[in-house]
C-alpha cells in the first residue's frame, strides 16, 4: 500500500484549472493500467487523490488532473522534475469490445479517462463501425485536448463538440452534450457506449442511449465516490452494494441506474 515514485517528465496546461502530467517511474513501475482504471496520486505531505488514467507514453503514465481541492491542487501544481507517488492501478476498465459501433460521451474532465478508448479506436479504426465521440464542456476554454480533435476526425471518428455557453470565437454547437446525441448513425444493438462526466449528465446520457435501443449493459458509465484505499478496505466509496474502487469505477448502466436513482445513497 506504499506509493511508488514517479517523476514528472512533462506538464501540459490544458485549461485554467487542468493540467496533464506525463510521469516516468523512478523505481519499479506500477502494473500497466487499462483504459478506465485509476490510480491514487500522492503529493508529498499533502495527501492522496484518485485520478483516472488518461494515457500512457513509453513506459510512463499520463494523468489529466483538475485542481479542485487541496490535494488535486498540489498534484496539478507539480512541475517538470517533481516527484509524485502513485498506487494502483485500481478498479474496472472500460472493456472496449473487439468490434461494433462505439459511442464515447464525455462531459468536462470526463474526457480524460475516455481518451485511451478514443486512441484505441483510432489505432484500430478498421475493427469498428461508427465511432462517435461526443464532447461537452461548459465553455470553449474548458474543452480538453482540443488540439487532438482534428487527428481523431482524420482517422474517421465522428467527433461532435458542444459547449454550454459560447464565447465570441465559438461557431460550433451550443447546448448540453446530450443534445448532440441526435441522429447518430449507429446500430443500437451493436453499440457499446462509454459515458463519463457529471452524474446528472451521465444519467441523461445513459437514458437517451437506452431510449435509442442500446442495451443498458452496453452503456458503461464511470462512477465517482470518495476513495481512500483503492482496494475495497476503507468503505468510503460505497454506493449501495458496490465498492466503487473495486466493483467500479466503470459499471454497466443496468447496475448503475437503480443506484443513481436514489438520492444520497
Amino acid at each position: 500500500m506504499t506509493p511508488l515514485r514517479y517523476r514528472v517528465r512533462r506538464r501540459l496546461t490544458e485549461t485554467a484549472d487542468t493540467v496533464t502530467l506525463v510521469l516516468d517511474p523512478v523505481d519499479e513501475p506500477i502494473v500497466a493500467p487499462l483504459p478506465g482504471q485509476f490510480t491514487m496520486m500522492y503529493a508529498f505531505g499533502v495527501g492522496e487523490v484518485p485520478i483516472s488514467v488518461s494515457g500512457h507514453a513509453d513506459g510512463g503514465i499520463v494523468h489529466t488532473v483538475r485542481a479542485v481541492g487541496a490535494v488535486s491542487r498540489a498534484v496539478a501544481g507539480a512541475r517538470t522534475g517533481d516527484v509524485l507517488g502513485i498506487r494502483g492501478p485500481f478498479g474496472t476498465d472500460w472493456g472496449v469490445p473487439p468490434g461494433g459501433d462505439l459511442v464515447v460521451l464525455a462531459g468536462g474532465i470526463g474526457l480524460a479517462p475516455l481518451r485511451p478508448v478514443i486512441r484505441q479506436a483510432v489505432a484500430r479504426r478498421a475493427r469498428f463501425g461508427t465511432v462517435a465521440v461526443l464532447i461537452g464542456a461548459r465553455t470553449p476554454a474548458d474543452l480538453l485536448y482540443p488540439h487532438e480533435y482534428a487527428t481523431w476526425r482524420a482517422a474517421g471518428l465522428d467527433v461532435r463538440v458542444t459547449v454550454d455557453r459560447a464565447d465570441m470565437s465559438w461557431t460550433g454547437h451550443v447546448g448540453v452534450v446530450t443534445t448532440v446525441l441526435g441522429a447518430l448513425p449507429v446500430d443500437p444493438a451493436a453499440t457499446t457506449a462509454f459515458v463519463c462526466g457529471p452524474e446528472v449528465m451521465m444519467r441523461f446520457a445513459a437514458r437517451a442511449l437506452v431510449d435509442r435501443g442500446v442495451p443498458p449493459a452496453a452503456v458503461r458509465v464511470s462512477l465517482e465516490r470518495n476513495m481512500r484505499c483503492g482496494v475495497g478496505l476503507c468503505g468510503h466509496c460505497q454506493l449501495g452494494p458496490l465498492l466503487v474502487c473495486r466493483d467500479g469505477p466503470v459499471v454497466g448502466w443496468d447496475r448503475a441506474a437503480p443506484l443513481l436513482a436514489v438520492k444520497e445513497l
Partner: protein
Amino acid sequence: MSTLLRSLGPLVRALHGQGYRVVGPTVRDGAIVLAELDRADALPYGWGVEAAPGRYRLHRRADAAAFGHAAGPQSWKAFLHPPRSPQWTADRTADGFTVTEAPPDSTRYAFLGVRGCDLRAIAVQDRVLGGADGGYARRRRELFIVAVSCTEPADTCFCASTGCGPAAGPGYDLGLTELVDGDRVRYLVEVGTPAGLELLTQLPTEPAPVDLVEEAAAAVAAAATKMSRALPEGDLRDLLAGSHDAARWDDVAARCLSCGNCTMVCPTCFCTTVEDVTDVAGEHAERWLRWDSCFDLDFSYLHGGPVRTSTRSRYRQWLTHKLGTWHDQFGESGCVGCGRCIAWCPVGIDITEETRALVTEAEEA
C-alpha cells in the same frame, strides 16, 4: 471430551510463557473494558453489567463470576484493527522523496474471554480485512483465542437471532464455559485447535464430570431464552434493498445524533480513513490509518460536497450496509447481535426495533 479447569491463573501464565500478550476484560472507568492482563486476578470477578438502550452500568454480583457480564464498550477489533496505525513515512530528498513502510507490528495477542458474538465478528472482519497482506492478517495469524460461552446475556443482546451465540464457536483455540457456585468458579474447557490442545496439556486439569458438562450446556441453552431482543426473521437483505424510501428513516433521523458511537463500538464496522501529516519543517511526512465512521459528514465527500448530507441518508447507509449490502460485498450479514450499538447509542436507538419497523412498513405498503 471435556476438561475441567479450577482457575484461570495457570492459563494466563501459560499464555505469557508462550510469548503472548494476553488481552481480556477488566474493570476500568466504570465499565468492563478490554486491556492487557498481567494476571488472571485482573479479570472482573464478581462484576455484572446492566445494559439497556442508551444505558450501561456495572454492579456487584452475588457471586464471583469473571464472565458474568455481556459486551462492553470495546470490541476486539481495537487490537486486531487498531483505531490508529502507522502506514508509512516519507522524507524529502534533494530530488524528490523516499518512502519507508512502517515496521510490521508483530504483536502476538491471546484474547481471553471472546464471546460468541465477538468470535463471529472476528470472522466477519477476516472476510473484509484478512485478504490483504497487511497488519490485520499478521496479527490474526498469530492470534490465540480463548472463547467463553455466554450464560448471562444483557438486556441488549440478540445473538440467538443472528445465530452467533450464546454458545461460542467455532473458531476458538480453547472454549470455556464458566460454572459459578457462589465464590467458587470453575471452567469447562473445549479444545478447538491443536494449538489449544498443546496449551491445555500444560495446565492442571481434570476430567469433567458428566453432570457439570450437562449443567454447562443447560446454562448456555438457557441464555438463549433469556434474550428479549431479536432481529426480525426473513430476508433482511431484500427488505433493506427495497426500503430506500421508507418513512422510518425520517423517524430515526429525528432521534439520531449522527455521533458515530454505533460504528465505534460495533465489532464489525471496519471503515477507515488516512491522515497525511508532516513535521513543521515539511521535510518528513507520515501516513496514518484511523477508524472512520459513515456518520461523519466528510465520509462521503466529493468535490462540491458530501454525497450523504442528511442524517437520514447516513443512518440508512449504516443499517442498509450492516444488514443488507454486506451480503453483496462479503457474503454474510455484518451484524452479530452483540447489542453494543443499542447500549452505547446516547439516545437509545435500537437496531432490532428499527429493523422491525422497516419490516412492518414494508408489510403495510
